[in-house]
């Protein structure tokens, strides 16, 4: 049983990257629960990221999915200069480790690497992440994602499609 949910969770995480690579924003959003927290902490010192998005700095923080919907709204206006043209992206995720939660959720730790290519320039971000995967009536959903970006001298722009 646990293997089945682990396999399905990995498929969901891989599918998330594919949705972003294909710029299928609506499908991407639908992978998240409405109350999903999405958080990219900032670095505090060499080895530590910030641990409280309400009092400290982050790179991106949304307490629920509506913030991600705002991002999609912005991308769909097709007038945000930073996203014209959108970079071609390639999301890769690996090294999955699973941590079953008492409430039936599954926390999935993984390593990730995303390449972006735009106007002859290659950018890349990489790091670790935690997905909180939740069984719902509508199948498995992402109920939370915390993304640690290891290379935080950010060239040009970082957006949801580049991590």
């Amino acid at each position: 049983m646990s293997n089945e949910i682990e396999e399905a969770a990995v498929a969901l995480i891989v599918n998330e990257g594919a949705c972003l690579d294909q710029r299928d924003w609506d499908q991407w959003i639908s992978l998240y629960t409405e109350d999903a927290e999405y958080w990219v902490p900032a670095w505090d010192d060499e080895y530590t990221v910030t641990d409280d998005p309400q009092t400290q700095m982050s790179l991106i923080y949304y307490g629920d999915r509506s913030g991600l919907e705002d991002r999609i709204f912005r991308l769909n206006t097709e007038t945000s200069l930073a996203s014209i043209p959108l970079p071609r992206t390639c999301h890769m995720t690996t090294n999955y480790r699973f941590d079953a939660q008492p409430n039936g959720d599954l926390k999935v730790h993984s390593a990730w690497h995303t390449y972006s290519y735009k106007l002859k320039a290659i950018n890349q971000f990489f790091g670790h992440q935690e997905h909180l995967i939740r069984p719902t009536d509508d199948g498995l959903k992402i109920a939370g994602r915390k993304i640690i970006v290891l290379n935080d001298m950010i060239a040009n722009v970082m957006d949801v499609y580049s991590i």
Partner: protein
Amino acid sequence: MSIPLPSGPDGYIKDDRANSEFLVPRKAFTSPEVLAAEREQIFNTCWLYAAHASEIPKANDFISRRVGGRELIISRNAEGELGAHFNTCSHRGAMVCREKMGNTKRFVCPYHGWTFDTGGVMVEQPADTGFPDDFFSKGTKNLRSVAKVDTYRDFVFITYNPNAKTLIEYLAGVTEYIDIVADQSAVGMEITEGNHEYSMRANWKLLLENSADGYHGLTTHATYFDYLQATNGAFRTDFDPATMAGKCVDLGNGHAAIEYGAPWGRPVAQWVPQWGEEGRATVDELKANLVARCGEDKATRIAEKNRNILIFPNLVINDIMALTVRTFQPVDAGYLEVNAWSLAPSEEHPDVRKFRQYNFLEFLGPAGFATPDDVEMLELCQQGYQNLPEPMWNDISKGMSQAQNGVNDELQMRAFWRQWNKLMAA
């Protein structure tokens, strides 16, 4: 130093007041020789922002960062006195500190073990032979300190110029605007934990110009304004759009600011419906405290106005939907690195701090809704300059024919460039 720019009666710029035309040479954004001259004549002579005192509150606290292209350790010694030293060993030159910040009694050079205290004093080295007895007691082997360090309202500045005038003289009229930032707390402002570091393929002066440029707001940031308008309660309901015109002021020595009505919530003391009724009570109390401390007029100015403040040459304090302190370093003529922090009252209510940080992230930073669009524009300008030599000049004349300039005019840039020209032509 020879500067490869055309020089006319106004120096390297064209400041034609009779015809209200102000032109800046594009080569000033692309030439490595110009950047080398800027390092000598601007970054090595001016006062430069180094840190905020709240980053190093205790004895033996330190930070290491690049200031004006040079690597510094800014620290408090064992007695708590503030100092700034070049991060390079007096022995063979290795950087003695590789951590961004921390608290320590000693900096030990990793190469041969020469050891310095947080005041830069050489305290020991591992060899027991080879030096005369008094070799290290003369002070000549201490870490070299920068020429001057001084603080204004907890903003720590340094200069590499031993002949620099005092900081307060240097800051000239911009002290009024720094005061308005510092007065937002009864007990002291603080840099909140964490920062944003980002880079762009653009000349450093492009970011300076852009940071207080009201003119680009509605085009470059169209999506942000669309987003705000589509968001319930993001704007104050009684906002008077006429206050957006605001003013733009030359504050002397290359410093300038724009100031204008803020339609959005300002965590210092301007509530918007998005923050809910509970938030309203908290923010109303902040406003009442502000009035009690500063008087009605100043409190209203602090609460309801945005300010984008340029402090020559490379400090920006933007007091907008959040408060950002931003400094940037040219790495080469076409590439710069930015360090940006969120500044807040240290006694801030947790609910209001939350609004502040959310506001900050929404608009600012490399993953925000505005900064990436700015970055893209500045890179486009830098790419446009590849077309030199024919299109030679940038135009920043807007508002020059008017007695008063508003936020959509370009007086703030002319103030910067006149000072730049004065120092470069010297």
